[in-house]
């Protein structure tokens, strides 16, 4: 009961802030509302016994990435756009395609499956589920090579960001 209540609260905050991100005029407010979405999703992660992922979400997303966003918004001194949305037919098609995507996602989530079978019951969790130790054990054994390749990806991103920020284009 208490879990359902927390889920409803976090889900409501997340959806409300997400709507604010998309429909608010001021980019600074958009960024701060996005922090609200990220924090409430972190709360839902904790409801799902994913403590370490929730901590990562708060530190990496709400900490590092959002600071980068706010820094760029304030560096560029972007005014609120007028008009807010793309004009004319593009806006209508945007909402139409989003509606199609939504119906498709909901249909995939609620349909009973091709042979009519139900979703399997939740498996009982081991006691260390979601802890840093359990995640590290899987990450450094099964997923060791993808983890190492991720470091190369981040190196490329750092070099790319420096090159893009330094040179003059166009």
């Amino acid at each position, binding site marked *: 009961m208490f879990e359902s209540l927390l889920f409803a609260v976090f889900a409501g905050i997340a959806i409300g802030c997400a709507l604010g*991100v*998309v429909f608010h005029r001021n*980019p600074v407010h958009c960024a701060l509302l996005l922090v609200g979405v990220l924090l409430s999703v972190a709360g839902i992660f904790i409801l799902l016994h*994913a403590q370490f992922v929730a901590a990562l*979400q708060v530190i990496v997303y709400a900490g590092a990435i959002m600071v980068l966003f706010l820094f760029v918004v304030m560096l560029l001194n972007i005014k609120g756009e007028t008009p*807010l949305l793309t004009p004319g037919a593009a806006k209508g098609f945007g909402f139409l395609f989003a509606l199609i995507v939504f119906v498709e996602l909901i249909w995939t989530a609620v349909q009973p499956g091709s042979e009519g079978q139900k*979703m399997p019951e939740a498996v009982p969790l081991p006691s260390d589920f979601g802890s840093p130790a359990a995640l590290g054990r899987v990450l450094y054994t099964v997923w060791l090579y993808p983890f190492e390749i991720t470091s190369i990806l981040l190196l490329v991103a750092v070099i790319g960001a420096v090159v893009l920020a330094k040179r003059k284009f166009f």
Partner: protein
Amino acid sequence: MPPTVPLVWYQILAAILFTIGVVGVLVRRSALVIFMSIELMLNAVNLSFVAFSRQHASMDGHIFVFFVMAVAAAEVAIGLAIIVAIFRNKETASVDDVHLLKG
């Protein structure tokens, strides 16, 4: 302790957040807000991964979330550098004003 909130509710929440992100990408004009909408969609997918991970009592979903976060960080660094480069040259951050490839 069995979960009291069924999996399908997490899936529906993820679908709603993802759709709001899609709307943002399709109808907004500011490149920065489009980037924030992409982060919104990535978060919806992360939520879906973690919910399935809890359902199957497997840590693999958490690993995927870890990699998605790393890719998102790289993507934001590069994307914001591109936005800054465009703004320094064209004094705009609106995607409607950037049409170099249009001929």
